[in-house]
């Protein structure tokens, strides 16, 4: 498949995620949108890794593999982030029985 397709697909997914972050007010949903962004990036990386593989496979059988490794690490980090993030959200909820980010306005100006 031409790489452009993947690029535009993932960029589209990414921007949907961004739009979600911008429009939604539920902290959890926003967080999910961010996860969507990360996944888009993962897909892009893998696509690129395959692209590089295609170009350089002859010289180096493992060409482009580090892209996939990177994805692996992204997943690692994402998992860690999720745990922390959900903990924070939960704490917030404990204190204010809401996860609406629009109520986060004690700090401003």
């Amino acid at each position, binding site marked *: 498949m031409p790489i452009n397709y993947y690029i535009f697909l993932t960029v589209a997914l990414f921007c949907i995620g961004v739009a979600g972050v911008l429009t939604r007010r539920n902290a959890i949903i926003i967080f999910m949108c961010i996860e969507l962004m990360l996944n888009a990036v993962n897909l892009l990386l893998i696509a690129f890794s395959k692209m590089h593989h295609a170009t350089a496979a002859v010289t180096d059988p493992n060409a482009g593999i580090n892209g996939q490794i990177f994805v692996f690490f992204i997943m690692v980090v994402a998992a860690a982030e999720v745990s922390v993030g959900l903990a924070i959200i939960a704490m917030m909820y404990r204190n204010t029985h809401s996860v609406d*980010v629009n109520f*986060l306005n*004690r700090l*401003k*100006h």
Partner: protein
Amino acid sequence: MSNYVYLVPLFPLIGFLINGLFRKSIPKSLSGLIGTAMILASFIVSAGIFFQVKQEGFQPVTITLFQFIHAGNLTIPFSFLVDPLSTLFLLIITGVGFLIHLYSIGYMKEENAPDYSKYFCFLNLFVFFMLLLVLGSNYVILFIGWEGVGLCSYLLIGYWFKNIDYDNAAKKAFIMNRIGDVGFLIAIFAIIYKFNSVSFDTVFQAAPSATTGFLTAITLLLFLGATGKSAQIPLYTWLPDAMAGPTPVSALIHAATMVTAGIYMIARSHVLYNLAPISQTVVAITGLATIILAALIAVKQNDIKKVLAYSTVSQLGYMFLGLGVGAYSEAVFHVLTHAFFKALLFLCAGSVIHAMSGEQDIRSMGGLKKYLPITHITFLMGCLAISGIPPFSGFFSKDEILTAAYGKNPVYFIIGVAGAMITAFYMFRLYATTFLGNFRGTDKQQHHLHESPSTMTIPLVVLAILAVVGGFLGVPELFAKNSNLLSHFLSPVLGGGEGSEEIPASTEWMLMGVSTILALSMVLYALSRFSKKPELGEPVGFAKWMADKFYVDELYDTLIVKPLNALADFFYQIIEKKLIDGLVNGTGRLVQYSSRQLRYLQSGQVGGYVLLMVIGTVLLFVVQLFLRK
């Protein structure tokens, strides 16, 4: 002897220092004594110098004390020039000065000790500066004296500083002089620029090389300085006010010496003037205008000193006329005689005021003849002298100037004579109203009336004699060959009196006759008119204009003083406060304001923040897209 010339200014300086530093401690008698003695000492020295200078074949000498200024290739030594002109002025200053000091001892004795010694210390300081002025061998030293005497006149006019009007008079005097001085200064700068030196001999030697335009400019600027110091139009109005000072001061500074500094300066730089005919004309015309204006004003003044003040202005006008027509030695001659008779008149006025216990308005005097005999006689002498009645001194000097003027331009002569008539008229109006008729003052004043003490009368007598015989120093060539001792004495400096040569003897006789007769007639008319019933009512019509000095002061006030103040206020209130400071503080306020607005970006909404970040991102990309094009 002339090598000791520095002693001449030194003595008064010492007097000044003693009186100044120990004004608290030393007793009145002593301080007066010191002051007078110092002047006497320097008079003796100057006399010695005079006799040396007077010998044939004397060459002017320059005594350099030390380097005053030297910057780059300009060097200005602090040096004195001894030549006939300066020597003559030395004599006038120290001689008349001495008499007036003497007179002051008596006149000022009511003052308490510190003020008394303050008075003498200022007076000595004045003499010091005046001597510096005439002795200086270059324009800068001359200028030092020039401003110095201005300062002293300021201090002495404001001697009774408790009186606000006196202070104002003093300030006015100083500032008007200052205006003239600026002209003088600029002239000096120009001279430095052109000749790279300020000493007289260098400048005068180099002068012919300069363009006429340049010389005209310089001479006019110098003349501006002269008008300030010597109270000519347009800067004369300070002199009458200066009468606020003690009368001896008026006699010394505002009649005999300081006001003649202008004449000295122009006579000194006559070389330049000879090369700048336009300036000469300006000088002459200014002189004439001043003669008439001042004389007219004097006619209607009722303050004895004011009358004399205006007469001084108008007499100075004659001297400038003389300078303007190139009759330098004649002008100087008139300075001499004027010093005698005007000092005399002032001192008499002083003794009158003294007798009248401070009263100065002649309308409340009259018939003082029998109370103050000596004063009366001497005053009469003075009047005759100033009115140019032969053979009194004034006649010779004034007449020579007029003759010279005729030689230049008959119109000058006519106006001059008219001035002389008016002079004769108001002087004798003054005389008559003061001494003739019967006493019009209060009884209290009446039985306080008395002749002044001898310290005051002796100077009167001396001066009176001088006023009578002084004229014979400069008898016109007409009467006898080489009879004009003065112009002969001055000729090394000023050259022979050019004015009179080309006029034939007959004409000269005629002119002399005319002026004498007219003056005499005015004298008689004035006597007849005022001796019996002096006018006391308020003047009306043109007379009122004269009495109110043609509103010149008011004119200056509206034309210069008020606008300046308005401008100043405008600058301060509008430009300074509103505009510049407004801008400065405005910047500060702008920052504050934008800060207040900008912080609303920090809305506290995560959504908002992310949105702004996205917008920022988009913008960066847009920039990139543009750059790539």
